[in-house]
């Protein structure tokens, strides 16, 4: 029996062992040197060695013995190109087996290739011996062995200590134990009562057994009920530690904490909290409290988290993690000041803590944005109320308002609930409804949760939250801003994605090709444009252009951007003819650039040159068919032209240039534009110029009228000025300045309602017009709607913090508001006004604005939803990052973001990576008409072409989702048509994955 004792200290470290050189063995057939580079070369060698007869034999054989792989595949070139991992694995096995000869280097190469393609491949697994001391550096080995030694000594010391307690404590412990199963507890000791074989086990009637016992004792009643499965796991929150030694306690506390960590790791936070509590009940440690706090943060149990953080800090005042977590909690509880204090403490301890810095910055921004408002919070008024002209949505909105107030009022510390009021009913509907029935803290939490989800996803909500996100200052966001324009897939987004670097340079002024002076001028111009000083911006851009031209350098794309930017300024100023000129120049330099085309189209449209505008829009759509603004405008113009020219309107159109394929969707992606065909025929341009001349008159008239109006304003004759401006508007409805000017006149005339309407109009077109905000704020003040007024002033200050008047007014209005608040609170119930939250766009790039809402958006409010969407420009700080959603919450967030932006491409991405089968789970009960619609649209536009089967799958599982029937019933006729259309397309693109019958039955489900 004398087994010898071995001690092997073995390292199973994670380093992947370099492949050891395989031994060369001599095969019977041929001796190969490692230098044989490929089998082809090898065959030649054989030829020499063996003579000519043997070669045909070898070549005839053709394949390997085991897997029938063509011998030619055992070659560097083949392996290098092969992407079929299975095949490569076979090759590797053949190579390793040595039946075709030994080629260590080729084997190694093949292994590398497989590793490159599939790092987890099983073929790469190799037996390897345990690591020994020699496999480590002296240092590593020293740490390993010294750790082990110290542990051994520690254990030995523990062993020597008296471990056995007196027998009495042992007995005590045993008394705590549950009774012996069966014998002394529920079941009598008689063995026959216990099932003995499997079938008996199945038949064993627990209820009956229990009822038998119940006769004897009532106590077991509760136990019997517990038998019904599935029972919710009941884990004691505390551990009875009587009679335990300190050592045992430590052991158990650690173990419970580990269980908590494991539960936390898989996202089971409730269980994690339980185990942390258990650990704490044995021995309270800072680490356990700290982890518990983190789990509670995940559960959004802010109060408990706060308590736990404080306990940690009681034990370890300098615990960075606890400080960070407490800051998070305070942040969530809206105690920004305390949050900032905590973060500052963190930064005192760890000055380099990047997360703390970032959070601090965010919170400070939030605080700054909130300050004026928070003054009013205590009074239970934290909702922006704005009149919106349409009545349809009123009821719902009003309800929301009420809800928000109610829930807001529940908590005096008051989380501003304005986030809720804003997001589309899609996200909010269900949550809001719930508020009716309940009225407690749970509600508040719900609100919070909802808010979080909507905020991050939608970013519709509070205007205060906005800038902080924007200013977080990542370069990449410049790109993001580009898409924050009108609707979803804005043209800038398309452009910016295709030539990210370049547009970044446009935003940041760090262009590589622009000379520094020009770049500086350009960024100054961008700044001016952002702040709405278009005239000055034009000057800057002109300087930049002159400078670049003066240099004589060939940088057509930069020049083109400069022209394009100047065109944007002109467009804003209403100087349409100059705008068109600049656009033409930009297009000469860079044919088929989206932005100049779009700008020219808009300018043409506002000059009522519908045909040119139409052509330009169409060209834009050829380049990128996803530009909603262009689509809308093209449709609108079509209508106008049909009215104007009758059914044969198309004949009068100038020819629409054909966009070369290379130019589609990726403009400016190379400097070699010269090789591209010049898109516009000269006749085309000539004709356009003629028309331009014709329209010059209208333009002139417009200008004179405007100037006259301005003169009247200067003289104080506001009535007359209003008339002039109104005439101007007949000529050009898109000119913002006219509206803001007229709003000013109305203000002076105390016609606040009209002034407000004008401002609203401007803001529809241009969401960050500072003047419009300022004037609307004054109008609200006049209308005694102080809350709205305060909010507008805040926006003004957000756009430009240096507007002194706004500050002054703000203070005044805030005071008024405070005076008035009690009265207002009383009035709230009556004031069922429609609320929309206006968003301020802080753009880093001036180019983003020219796609401001087109006219019809203002007039065609159909539903409140739309109104909200249009008022609130979709914001995303960067391109929606779509990652596979792990749970319904993630999914919901992405959907919300997608929905806000109407970003069908992103939605399509999402749908592509989402397993259709999971759709119902992921959607949970959040399916809404809007979501359904955007799904349908993105499936149609993006997914259908690539993978019709996926579309079918999605449609199929979509119909399994909760609320599907309800949503379907609520679809409008128009929307139904879209669904129908998708089905038609599906039928056309039919493939073998689904049959027409399937489609038909699914159609029935969709009630088509």
């Amino acid at each position, binding site marked *: *029996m004398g087994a010898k*004792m*071995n*001690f*092997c*200290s*073995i*390292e*199973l*470290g*994670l380093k992947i062992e370099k492949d050891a050189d395989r031994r060369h063995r001599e095969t019977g057939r041929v001796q190969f040197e490692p230098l044989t580079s490929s089998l082809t070369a090898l065959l030649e060698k054989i030829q020499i060695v063996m003579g000519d007869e043997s070669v045909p034999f070898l070549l005839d054989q053709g394949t390997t013995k085991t897997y029938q792989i063509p011998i030619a595949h055992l070659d560097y070139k083949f392996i290098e190109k092969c992407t079929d991992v299975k095949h490569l694995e076979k090759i590797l096995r053949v190579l390793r087996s040595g039946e075709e000869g030994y080629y260590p280097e080729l084997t190694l190469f093949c292994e590398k290739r497989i590793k490159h393609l599939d790092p987890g491949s099983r073929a790469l*697994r190799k*037996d390897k011996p*345990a690591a020994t001391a020699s496999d480590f550096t002296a240092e590593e080995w020293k740490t*390993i*062995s010294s750790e*082990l*030694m110290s542990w051994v000594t520690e*254990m030995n010391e523990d062993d020597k200590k008296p*471990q056995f*307690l007196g027998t009495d404590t*042992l007995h005590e*412990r*045993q008394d705590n*134990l*549950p*009774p*012996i*199963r*069966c*014998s002394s507890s529920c079941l009598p*000791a008689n*063995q026959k009562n*216990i*099932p*003995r*074989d*499997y079938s*008996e086990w*199945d038949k*064993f009637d*627990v209820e009956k057994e229990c009822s038998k016992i119940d006769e004897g004792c009532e106590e077991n009643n509760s136990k019997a009920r*517990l038998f019904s499965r*599935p029972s919710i*796991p*009941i884990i*004691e929150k505390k551990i009875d530690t009587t009679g335990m*030694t300190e050592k*045992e306690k430590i052991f158990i506390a650690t173990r419970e904490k*580990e*269980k908590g960590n*494991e539960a936390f*790791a898989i996202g089971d936070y409730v*269980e994690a909290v339980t185990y942390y509590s258990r650990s704490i009940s044995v021995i309270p440690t800072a680490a356990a409290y700290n982890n518990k706090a983190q789990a509670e943060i995940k559960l959004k149990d802010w109060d408990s988290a706060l308590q736990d953080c404080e306990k940690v800090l009681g034990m370890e005042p300098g615990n960075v993690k606890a400080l960070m977590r407490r800051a998070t909690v305070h942040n969530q509880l809206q105690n920004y000041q305390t949050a900032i204090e905590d973060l500052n403490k963190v930064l005192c301890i760890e000055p380099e803590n990047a997360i703390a810095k970032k959070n601090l910055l965010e919170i400070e921004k939030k605080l700054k944005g909130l300050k004026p408002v928070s003054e009013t919070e205590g009074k239970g008024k934290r909702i922006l109320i704005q009149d919106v002209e349409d009545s349809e949505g009123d009821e719902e909105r009003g309800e929301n308002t009420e809800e928000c107030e109610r829930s807001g009022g529940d908590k005096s510390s008051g989380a501003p609930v304005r986030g809720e009021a804003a997001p589309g009913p899609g996200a909010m509907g269900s949550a809001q409804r719930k508020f009716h029935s309940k009225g407690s803290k749970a509600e508040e939490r719900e609100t919070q949760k909802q808010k979080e989800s909507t905020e991050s996803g939608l970013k519709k909500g509070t205007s205060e939250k906005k800038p902080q996100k924007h200013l977080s200052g990542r370069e990449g966001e410049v790109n993001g801003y580009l898409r924050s324009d009108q609707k979803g897939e804005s043209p800038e987004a398309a452009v910016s994605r295709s030539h990210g670097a370049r547009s970044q340079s446009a935003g940041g002024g760090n262009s590589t090709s622009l000379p520094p002076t020009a770049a500086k001028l350009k960024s100054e111009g961008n700044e001016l444009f952002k702040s709405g000083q278009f005239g000055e911006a034009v000057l800057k851009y002109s300087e930049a252009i002159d400078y670049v031209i003066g240099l004589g350098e060939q940088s057509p794309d930069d020049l083109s951007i400069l022209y394009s930017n100047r065109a944007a300024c002109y467009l804003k100023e209403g100087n349409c003819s100059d705008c068109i000129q600049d656009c033409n120049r930009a297009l000469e330099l860079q044919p088929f650039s989206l932005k100049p085309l779009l700008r020219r189209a808009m300018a043409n449209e506002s000059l009522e040159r519908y045909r040119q505008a139409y052509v330009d829009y169409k060209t834009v759509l050829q380049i990128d068919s996803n530009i909603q603004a262009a689509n809308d405008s093209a449709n609108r113009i079509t209508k106008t032209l049909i009215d104007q020219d009758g059914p044969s309107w198309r004949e009068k159109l100038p020819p629409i240039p054909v966009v070369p394929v290379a130019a589609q969707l990726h403009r400016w992606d190379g400097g070699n534009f010269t090789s591209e065909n010049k898109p516009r025929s000269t006749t085309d341009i000539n004709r356009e110029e003629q028309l331009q001349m014709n329209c010059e008159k209208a333009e002139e008239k417009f200008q004179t009228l405007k100037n006259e109006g301005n003169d009247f304003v200067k003289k104080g004759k506001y009535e007359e000025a209003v008339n002039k401006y109104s005439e101007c508007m007949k000529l050009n409805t898109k000119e913002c300045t006219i509206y803001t000017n007229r709003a000013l006149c109305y203000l002076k005339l105390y016609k606040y309602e009209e002034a407000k309407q004008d401002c609203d109009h401007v803001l529809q077109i241009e969401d960050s017009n500072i003047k419009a905000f300022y004037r609307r704020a004054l109008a609200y003040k006049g209308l005694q709607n102080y809350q709205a007024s305060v909010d507008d002033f805040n926006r003004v200050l957000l756009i430009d913090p240096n507007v002194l008047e706004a500050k002054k007014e703000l203070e005044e209005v805030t005071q008024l508001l405070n005076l008035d608040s009690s009265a207002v609170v009383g009035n709230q119930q009556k004031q069922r006004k429609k609320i929309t939250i206006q968003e301020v766009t802080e753009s880093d790039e001036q180019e983003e604005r020219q796609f401001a809402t087109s006219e019809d958006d203002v007039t065609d409010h159909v539903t409140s939803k739309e109104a909200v969407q249009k008022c609130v420009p979709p914001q995303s700080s960067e391109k929606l990052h779509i990652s*596979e*959603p*792990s749970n319904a919450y993630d999914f919901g967030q992405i959907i919300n973001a997608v929905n806000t932006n109407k970003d069908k491409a992103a939605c399509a991405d999402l749908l592509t990576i989402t397993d259709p089968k*999971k759709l*119902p*789970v992921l959607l949970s009960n959040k399916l809404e008409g809007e979501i359904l619609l955007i799904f349908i649209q993105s499936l149609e536009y993006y997914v259908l072409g690539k993978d019709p089967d996926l579309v079918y799958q999605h449609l199929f599982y979509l119909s399994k989702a909760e609320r599907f029937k309800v949503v379907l019933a609520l679809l409008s006729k128009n929307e139904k048509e879209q669904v129908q259309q998708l089905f038609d397309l599906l039928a056309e693109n039919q493939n073998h994955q689904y049959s027409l019958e399937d489609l038909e039955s699914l159609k029935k489900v969709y009630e088509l």
Partner: protein
Amino acid sequence: PRAPGALRLSELRGGRLALLREIEKAKPIKCGTFGATSLQQRYLATGDFGGNLNIWNLEAPEIPVYSVKGHKEIINSIDGVGGLGIGEGAPEIVTGSRDGTVKVWDPRQKDTPVANMEPVQGESKRDCWTVAFGNAYNQEERVVCAGYDNGDIKLFDLKTMSLRWETNIKNGVCSVEFDRKDVNMNKLVATSLEGKFHVFDMRTQHPTKGFASVSEKAQKSTIWQVRHLPQNRDIFMTSGGAGSLHLWKYEYPAQRSKKDSEGAEMGVAGSVSLLQNVTLSTQPISSLDWSPDKKGLCVCGAFDQTVRVLIVTKLNKV
């Protein structure tokens, strides 16, 4: 302690194993566990070739503190719960034997098992190769999982005294273990004769489909044993017939459960990735265990009459 009839207690001392005491018993011992004893007592429970269950006080090993002739044939496997601070509730020992029965014992009750699971009369008796406790997260709940030579895995619920679930993995089940005995059933690993192992997600039981599982082929030879790292339940080591050890990590899926077409919850299995492997011997490594105190320290016994102590480093970085 696998050597027939002999128990050896050893101590790590200065990089060598030092023999503390050698105890010889008449009947060859097949398996043993400390699982049902308190941290203070440290009594060892053993099952031997004669079907006897003995509990020994290792300080006084002459007479067992508890002894029962539990089975007619060899006790293949033993597991304990409720001791060592692991698992709520009473200390219990479960034994699985070649005679096809699985019996649960309470050291406080002499002579008779507290639960007995055996095939019906007439049904062919299968050799029970392995047993394991689990789900002991409170005083009432407790399950026993048993694996048989025909590939059956049966899960007995000791609270309701019912067969909760059974499945067949086609090949003899060499070893089963819950990742934790003392939590709400989370995962179960079952290894098989032909070199595969299955990881079952035990959180969600579907009414008909049972538990979701993922299987992985570790090696060409039998996987003799699986043991989860006491400090991290998602890492486990399998010991194989070719003398190799494989260290695995289980990765949870994004969502552990989903609704099937009838709306019943069903589990979703995750994936398993190999962290490291090592070959120690040409003979099978038949048993394996981790140190509960020192993370990464483990011991394994092989058919080449050798006990090896290994340390696995960098486990905290996984």
